[in-house]
């Protein structure tokens, strides 16, 4: 197994703090090993992109950060993922707490069939906030943060499904922000959007990284190059298990990668 040295420590000393640390992670679906030997440290308030060809386990890795894999029958996780130094897979850890601290935005915008307001208020209500004034404040703040306020402020009580695709995705981001997470996972958040909506999401990510740690899975190489500070390159090995072959500053991955396969992939020679 070839893993560059930089995997085990922050890619550049003194540049941010490690927010999430993955140590020897392996994920199994039944007998099938989907991920093996993953080591990664994610920097706080930076954007980390995970790239790689289809089926290399990017989404599986992403779903390990908030234990969404628990929902897949037969899924088993080995190794350790620590959030601020605490292993989220340790026995006795409250998965609800993990999911509040690690929010998720999905590939297809998936607002609930409720009003815009109720979509955003859904999370806070789960955590016992019911006073209208409090909810109003959270809803407005979250929608502002998601750069959607101007477009929806007059129709907060219309269905979330009445918005355009790009607006729906920003609504989903607002919904995730409303529970004040520390880390936001994004699973190809713009892959179903037109170029202008994609651009808005990318600009939004730049805003959000001032306060949040963002991990994004993307198929779009230009997107990874544009938005991320760090990039992790994944590939499958001979046993079809996903492995991380290189992890570094985004500009290094895209200009002078150490691994030949990374170079081939980012220059579009395969994948």
């Amino acid at each position: 197994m070839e893993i560059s040295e930089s995997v085990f420590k922050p890619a550049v000393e003194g540049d941010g703090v490690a927010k999430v640390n993955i140590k020897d992670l392996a994920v199994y679906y039944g007998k099938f090993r989907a991920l093996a030997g993953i080591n990664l440290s994610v920097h706080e308030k930076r954007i980390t992109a995970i790239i790689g060809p289809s089926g290399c386990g990017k989404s599986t890795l992403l779903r390990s950060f908030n234990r969404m894999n628990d929902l897949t029958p037969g899924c088993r996780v080995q190794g350790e993922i620590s959030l601020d130094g605490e292993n989220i897979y340790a026995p006795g850890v409250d998965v609800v707490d993990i999911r509040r601290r690690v929010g998720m935005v999905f590939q297809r915008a998936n607002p609930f069939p409720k009003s815009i307001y109720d979509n955003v208020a859904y999370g806070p209500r789960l955590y016992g906030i019911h006073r209208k004034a409090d909810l109003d404040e959270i809803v407005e703040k979250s929608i502002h943060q998601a750069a959607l306020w101007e477009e929806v402020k007059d129709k907060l009580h219309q269905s979330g499904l009445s918005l355009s695709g790009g607006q729906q995705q920003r609504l989903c981001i607002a919904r995730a922000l409303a529970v004040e997470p520390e880390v936001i996972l994004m699973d190809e958040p713009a892959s179903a959007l037109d170029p202008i909506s994609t651009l808005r999401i990318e600009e939004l990510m730049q805003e959000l990284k001032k306060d949040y740690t963002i991990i994004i899975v993307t198929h779009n190489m230009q997107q990874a190059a544009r938005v991320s500070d760090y990039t992790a390159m994944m590939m499958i090995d001979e046993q079809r298990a996903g492995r991380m072959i290189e992890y570094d500053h985004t500009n290094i991955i895209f200009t002078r990668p150490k691994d030949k396969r990374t170079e081939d992939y980012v220059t579009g020679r395969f994948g």
Partner: protein
Amino acid sequence: MSHFAELMERNRVSHGRRRKVANAVMLSLTGLLTALALVPLFWIIGYVILKGGQYINLDFFIHLPRPLGMPGGGVLSAIEGTLVVTFLAALFAIPPGVLAAFYAARYPNTPLGVVLRFSTDVLSGVPSIVVGLFAYSVIVVPMGHYSGLAGGAALAVIMLPTIIRTTEEMLKLVPATLREASLGLGAPEWKTSLNVLFPAASSGILTGFLLALARAAGETAPLLMTTLGNEHFNISQIFTAGVQGHKSIFTILWSIVNQPVDSLPLTLWKYAQQPYPERVQQAWAVALVLMLFVLIVNATARVWIQRRNRLMKG
């Protein structure tokens, strides 16, 4: 031009003509057969309106049946009985049906889920007269008398498969990503089901209720063996008598469901067999009322869904 190109060009012209003819023939054939399939529906509706429409008047809805030979008289007892029995059936069938459907949708491959789906199919195939016999032997016989309660229970058994099946299908149609979005925010499974899954599927589930209700309202065989029929059944009379006798509301409600009741299909069946023209005329009128009842329930379901869909899409 190569030999093949010439051949293809010639074929294109002749095939084109043949294609147009075939298209015209098939199109008219499908149109004709579609029209043919609609004939029974409109025939039935038209015939029932023709035969029964003239005997429907206000009296028909507000009076109890009168003895033969007396003019006027209606089928109030049957209308009220049908409402009572279908209401009871919905009350008995909906809660267990919805919970069973939730289980089947959520855990389809567990042993219980498989057995549940199989039994639902079997249950929907049980003849309704057998369901009536069953209700007769487990409710009517132990209680010692016929009752609306027994009729409601029999109809509930008839409704159950439809409710389980439609609810299960509607729950399965909710995109998995909605569930994930809720769970991803840290919502526990039960809150996700209650706040996201069921609301997202609610319009479809309600349609299932109404369709099951419409079907049950038209059933005759199970009621033959459970409700018996009661031409004097009159809710307002029972109420007035109960209030005057200083009985509690529960006693009054109990006496409504605990006695034999009339119902529209049963009245239709009885009247249609009698040798008196007035009764046969009334049977047609009852048929029309029953048909309208079912049509209205169905139409309400559709309109309601459309309005809801429009609201949800903005």
